């Protein structure tokens, strides 16, 4: 059995051909190793990084952009969105800070991707790029 895929690991978008013969899976068309592992994963259980936002308790920063630290199964994406919609961030987080340890029955964490200490209204004309210190 042969299957055509487009690799989505980077903007190059390599056109992959995956051949499924007996036990082995062989991938051609990839310009780097990420293409091969992508194709194999894609056959078993397609996984994606989920990026979205989480509500916060801060008026100057009402929504915090977040992403999964690693990929989650594509089929879990809507369930994860449901769980995320119930979250409210109550601390000022910075990129990389964990919002949720385990998102929607996966082992994948949800992390902040923006800096809430840079509220919308931070000091103008000063060298200060944001209020430091995490408020609660």
């Amino acid at each position, binding site marked *: 059995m042969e299957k055509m895929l487009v690799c989505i690991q980077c903007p190059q978008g390599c056109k992959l051909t995956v051949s499924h013969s007996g036990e082995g899976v062989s991938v051609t068309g990839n310009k780097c190793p990420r293409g091969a592992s992508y194709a194999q994963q894609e056959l078993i259980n397609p996984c994606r990084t989920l990026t979205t*936002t*989480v*509500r916060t308790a801060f008026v100057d920063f009402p929504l915090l952009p977040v992403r999964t630290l690693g990929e989650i199964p594509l089929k879990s994406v809507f369930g994860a*969105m*449901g769980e*995320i*919609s*119930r*979250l*409210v961030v109550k601390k000022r987080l910075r990129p990389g800070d964990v919002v949720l340890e385990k998102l929607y029955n996966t082992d994948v964490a949800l992390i902040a991707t923006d800096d809430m200490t840079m509220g919308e209204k931070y000091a103008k004309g000063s060298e200060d790029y944001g209020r430091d210190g995490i408020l609660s």
Partner: protein
Amino acid sequence: MTEKLNLVARELAKLGLTAVYPREWRRSVVLEGEVDTWQQYIAAGYAAAGKGYKGVVNAIKVRGLEQSREYLPPAQGGALEGKDYDVVIIGGGVIGCAVARDLTRWDLRVALLEKEDDVAKQTSSRNNGMIHPGIAASSGSKKLAYNIRGNRMYTQAAEELGFELVRCGSVVMLGKSMYQLALPYVRYKALQKGVDGLIPLSRRQVARREPNATSLQRGGIFLPSTGVVAPYKVTVAYAENAVENGAAVHLNTAALGFAMEQGRIIGVRTNQGLIRAGAVVNAAGVWADKIAAYADDHFFTIHGRKGTIAIIDKALGATQKSVLALPRLGVKSYTKGGGLNPTVEGNLLMGPTAIEVSQREDWSTTPEEMEFLFSRHLSLNRQLRPRDTITYFAGVRACTFEEDFIIEPSEHVPNLIHAVGIQSPGLASAPAIAQDVAAMAVEILKTTREVKPNPTFNPERRLTPQLAKLSLEERGEAIKKNPAYGQIVCRCEAISAGEIIDAIHSPVPATSLDAVKRRARAGMGRCQGGFCTPAILEILARETGKAASEINKGRPGSQLLAGETKTGGGTRT
């Protein structure tokens, strides 16, 4: 059959309209029967015009054609039930608003009813904004008299009301052979009509004045009295000054009929209850015949004539100083041919077109009309390309078949005044029309009571800062007083949060995105609101105390948002 009616019948027969029946009613002619097409309906109306009747009522049915839809505000209630005014004006276009403002010179209770969610929503915001010099109106017409007078009155109106008027002048160019033949005639006509200050120009003089003018020109004339205004700003300015002087503006309020007693109007029925009225002004634009019919005074029919206009990027605004037009022979004069005109904001407008339409509130544009505009007018200025168009829009002129304004007290209802059939140059004529209509209303009221001047009338509108008009020093001062002027929201037009907030709290408050646009110009630039819509939305929500999802683009029902995100169910932790 009278002689006049015979004439009408013969013309109809010539057109082959055998199923159209003319009859006389009062001093007007009424057409009844059936035709197959809208074009035939229009042709029949014109066949009956100019035969000596007061008006043409075209009641012909067009087979298979849907009646013109009319927008009515969805809300029903009794908020205005029992209100009592000396004068009720129906229609918040430039005419209605100017009349309201002129009536506040008197000690009267004045109300203006507008069915839309804001003033200046129909024809008064959908036009070229030109204060015509008067040369195009025909001799002896009301159009001509009001245009010439209105044009002269604009200078004072602009000063008092604080709107921008630019007397840019117009260059009417003559093509090829026309020049030699037409010039003496044009001069003679202009003189006779009272057009101010005509200057003949040779081909080279045109080129010197307007270096980018078409190479087809063979000279022309310069009319220095031509001006341009932002028509919605003029309308809003009149409405605001009226409110400042005590008038009431009721938006989302439609006149639906009259309560009459012994042939007089005693009240106006609206979707918000019955409003008592001493006198009524009909300034209802494309629906003025419907209002007249409510009072059994339906002696004219309005038909719509749509005009499409393209807006050219500001970057090209400097390529032309005056209005440019090149009239062509064999074109019906009522279209005036259109052309290219500057705006007070520094863009150029191209158009308008002129097409008879059966739907009076259809402001949609079509690719065909845009192509017509490009082919017809683009070359008037050699710098312009189709891609310089940033947006386009259409308006519908309210035309009678006699093609002249009707500005007079009703012949049958003693306390009703018509200011109808106000097609182009209605904007240019507005100050003069308002002056006369206000005087007519006062005359009517004087028959039953004393009418005194309004001792506190202030002709000057209170102005809030318009940053674009300030020097850098004044701008700095304004920002120091109110930091909101320092924060730019609309980047294309450089409009600040402070100006938007002012518009939201103005005498005729802006409560929708489009209303903010009309007053503060935010969102009207090249990106057409792409960047600032979300920000204006937040400001509107905050200032009016509403949820963002309740904010409309314009009319009720035009919500900008479907709701909020993260409604995936459950409670938030």
